[in-house]
């Protein structure tokens, strides 16, 4: 088994044991969706206008929870050093952690998305496949940039609280693109979707590559 897969399997094994990450992600996302529903109920706005925003707020903040937990497991007992001693490059280590984080976020989203559809009484038709594609891409981007940022933020005195401070400004273009394209698909107003998708794809590629290259500096002693 290759080292990268070994790390992913290890993360799965740990998560299966405690299920902390998945539980907290799903719970948090559900709470956000519920709160948003209350907040905009009385305004009489078309649900499709507000819903995408609530989805991506839920996803991005739940992601921060997951990223923090994931890194906390590696700093416990200095396990990260154990990984740095292993015969795999820093870039491969980065890819392994991104894969684990991405996987867990996707699993949480399997629960969150249907709830999103139900809460907002959306039409679940073939167009929704496009929404799923956007969620997939957006989640990958968040996992990509979040993995290196959580490594950086864990070095600070503020620890977990630092991650949202670093991540939210940087992922803003990603969130805007995701919300807008989701909204356009739901409202069947798909004029700009391709531009948004370019931004989404561009962001993902740029940041996965950049983080892959910079990861060794982030874990340096």
């Amino acid at each position, binding site marked *: 088994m290759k*080292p990268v897969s070994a790390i992913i399997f*290890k993360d799965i094994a740990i998560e299966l044991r405690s299920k902390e990450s998945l539980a907290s992600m799903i719970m948090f996302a559900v709470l956000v969706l519920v709160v948003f529903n209350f907040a905009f109920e009385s305004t009489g706005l078309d649900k499709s206008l507000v819903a995408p925003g609530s989805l991506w707020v839920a996803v991005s903040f739940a992601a921060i929870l997951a990223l923090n937990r994931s890194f906390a497991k590696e700093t416990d*007992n*200095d*396990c990260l050093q154990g*990984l740095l001693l*292993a015969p795999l*490059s820093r870039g491969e280590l980065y890819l392994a952690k991104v894969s684990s984080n991405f996987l867990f976020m996707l699993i949480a989203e399997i629960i969150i998305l249907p709830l999103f559809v139900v809460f907002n009484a959306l039409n679940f038709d073939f167009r929704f496949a496009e929404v799923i594609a956007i969620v997939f891409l957006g989640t990958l981007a968040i996992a990509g940039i979040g993995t290196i940022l959580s490594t950086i933020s864990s070095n600070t005195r503020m620890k977990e609280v630092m991650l949202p401070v670093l991540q939210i400004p940087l992922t803003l273009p990603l969130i805007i693109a995701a919300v807008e394209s989701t909204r356009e698909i739901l409202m069947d107003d798909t004029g700009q979707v391709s531009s948004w998708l370019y931004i989404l794809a561009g962001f993902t590629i740029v940041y996965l590559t950049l983080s892959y290259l910079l990861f060794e500096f982030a874990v*340096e002693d």
Partner: protein
Amino acid sequence: MTATLALQSQDIRKTFGHFTALGGVSLTVERGEFVALFGRNGAGKTTFLKVAATLVRATHGKLAIEGVDIHEEPEKARRHIGFLSHNTYLYRDLNPVENLRFFGRLYGVPDLEGRIHQLLERVGLQRRKSDPVRAFSRGLHQRLGLARVMLHNPSVILLDEPYTGLDANAVDMLNGLLDEAAAAGKTVILTTHDFDQGIRAATRTVIIDRGKVVLDSPAKDSAARDAYTEYIRLGLSR
């Protein structure tokens, strides 16, 4: 053609900002040697070990483990290295078998299950093999940590203050494992504050002070003990 050296460092320097941790360490360790590395706190012995283990990047100099340059081929070099510090790098949520299985896969250890079984027997953890590491005492932690270090059969074993916080049983177990490793031809480099512990099985004594090697002699040479005592005395009066 000279035999491959276990460790060869040439003028290894490391600065952290303005602070010079290592000011040029050139050390040659042959296979099978057992080196006791002494030095005051902050002298640079931990830093040197970490550079050799590829955990810290040297600012200058070359270092090769079993003939592999650690800067050019770090992943290849790491296969030969087993590193243990006072942190055990074990996952608290998993049990010993799962932990070892993970590290075994990481290093591509052949006949993994058999090897895990064998090691757990050796360190006396067979009965606790299904308990999550979270519940373990410090001593049991260390034993599993030792199993982890030996798992991939490294030819160069680096230990940073391994005796810290160990009870008598654990000390005996560690010494037993080290003696077996030495007998099997492995190279051991360990750092410790306890001169007697360090010198017990050592073939060579090295003292590092303020980032440089100040003494390098065969262990059984009485000069080594005298030099060490003098070194400590000087340190206390500073």
